[in-house]
């Protein structure tokens, strides 16, 4: 069953890469991330598939705004004459890179480690994670307990990318005028009305993901993206642009600071071992902080892109 899904996955991947007209790329990429979300289910990783599903709407929106600006701004496009393409030019453009990638592929596959995957580490984690970190969800307890160091730097990378997006497209005054975005309809048509009904469901689901991230599949990252996609729907409904960036940027940096303090206090100073009953609140607090950070980060990126759209 999984092999057929993976064949579809590769087909949609090839389609997305070689699409001639740019508009088709968005549709093919949406199919690509849909099928990869299902593949993650079958691989036994529901958290990752939920992250992929929640994020696919974001990458679609970023692609759309990027193409919108591309079509308006770019004027010089090389119209390479297909018929006059000599072999040497086509060779340079197509055949050489093809055999280059094929060579690397063969090398890589040849040196791929074979033999059965020894499951020592997996058994260790599965056996120990309830005692050390608490909570039922092994993946959450790993990236919050055993490998909290990576999570801190992941949050730092998110902060850096948010800051770079904000400042590369910074506009001093973000006026609260009506931000017209690609013909978003007035607020009484059918689709906007149903979004208004569905939006609370998305918000409640995001909060659900955060709060019991350590029991059922979920956790800070997916919950944050779910809440951020609630703000996308809010933008679709009200189509007004009243997000104050200064406050959100400061607030995001504060969340990041409290995240570091909490992690350092708990894991590195060893409070963990003396007060075992504080474990579940620690997991909850970390999940909430990460979710707030991710949600603010994505809101800023989304609204900066909407600002791009209007300029």
């Amino acid at each position: 069953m999984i092999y057929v899904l993976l064949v579809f996955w590769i087909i949609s991947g090839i389609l997305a890469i070689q699409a001639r007209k740019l508009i088709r790329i968005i549709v093919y990429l949406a199919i690509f991330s849909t099928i990869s979300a299902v593949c993650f289910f079958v691989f036994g990783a529901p958290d990752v598939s939920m992250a992929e599903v929640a994020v696919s709407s974001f990458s679609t929106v970023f692609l759309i705004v990027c193409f919108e600006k591309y079509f308006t701004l770019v004027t010089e496009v090389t119209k390479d004459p297909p018929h006059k393409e000599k072999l040497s030019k086509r060779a340079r453009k197509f055949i050489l890179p093809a055999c280059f990638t094929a060579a690397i592929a063969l090398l890589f596959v040849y040196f791929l480690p074979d033999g059965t995957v020894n499951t020592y580490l997996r058994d260790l984690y599965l056996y120990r994670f309830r005692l050390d970190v608490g909570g039922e969800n092994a993946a959450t307890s790993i990236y919050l307990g055993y490998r909290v160091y990576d999570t801190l730097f992941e949050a730092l990378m998110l902060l850096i990318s948010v800051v770079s997006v904000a400042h590369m497209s910074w506009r001093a005054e973000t006026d609260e005028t009506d931000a017209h975005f690609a013909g978003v309809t007035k607020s009484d048509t059918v689709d906007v009305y149903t979004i208004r009904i569905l939006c609370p469901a998305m918000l409640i689901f995001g909060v659900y993901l955060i709060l019991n991230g350590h029991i059922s599949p979920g956790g800070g990252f997916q919950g944050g993206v779910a809440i951020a996609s609630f703000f996308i729907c809010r933008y679709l409904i009200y189509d007004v642009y009243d997000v104050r960036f200064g406050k959100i940027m400061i607030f995001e940096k504060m969340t990041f600071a409290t995240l570091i303090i909490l992690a350092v206090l708990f894991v590195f100073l060893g409070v963990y071992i003396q007060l075992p009953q504080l474990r579940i609140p620690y997991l909850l607090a970390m999940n909430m902080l990460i979710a707030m950070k991710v949600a603010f980060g994505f809101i800023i990126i989304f609204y900066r892109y909407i600002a791009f759209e209007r300029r």
Partner: protein
Amino acid sequence: MNFEIVELFAIAMFFISLFGLITSKGVIKGIISMITMEIAVVMFFLSIGFQTGILPPIGRDVGDNVADPLPQALMITAIIIGVAVTAVNMTMLIALSRQFKTTEWDILKKKKME
């Protein structure tokens, strides 16, 4: 050479997007193949140690056929950061297209020369 066939699919996708990256005429095609490359890497990590009918590692002990929680924990953050990095790429692309009015590599090289 008895690794699972599933990993081969992910590796194949990685090299297809690498090929797409190499032969991309414009910057946009490069960003698109980078997106597919990221998802291919995530798929490869998750397909390690895959048996049919594998169960997620939530609330299960060592006994039965459970998926490895470690790569899953790393891949959740990898996807979120991947999208944030894609957003940064696109901001640069928009700034580039505003200044140079083009996103084709050949024209950009000529323009840089001046």
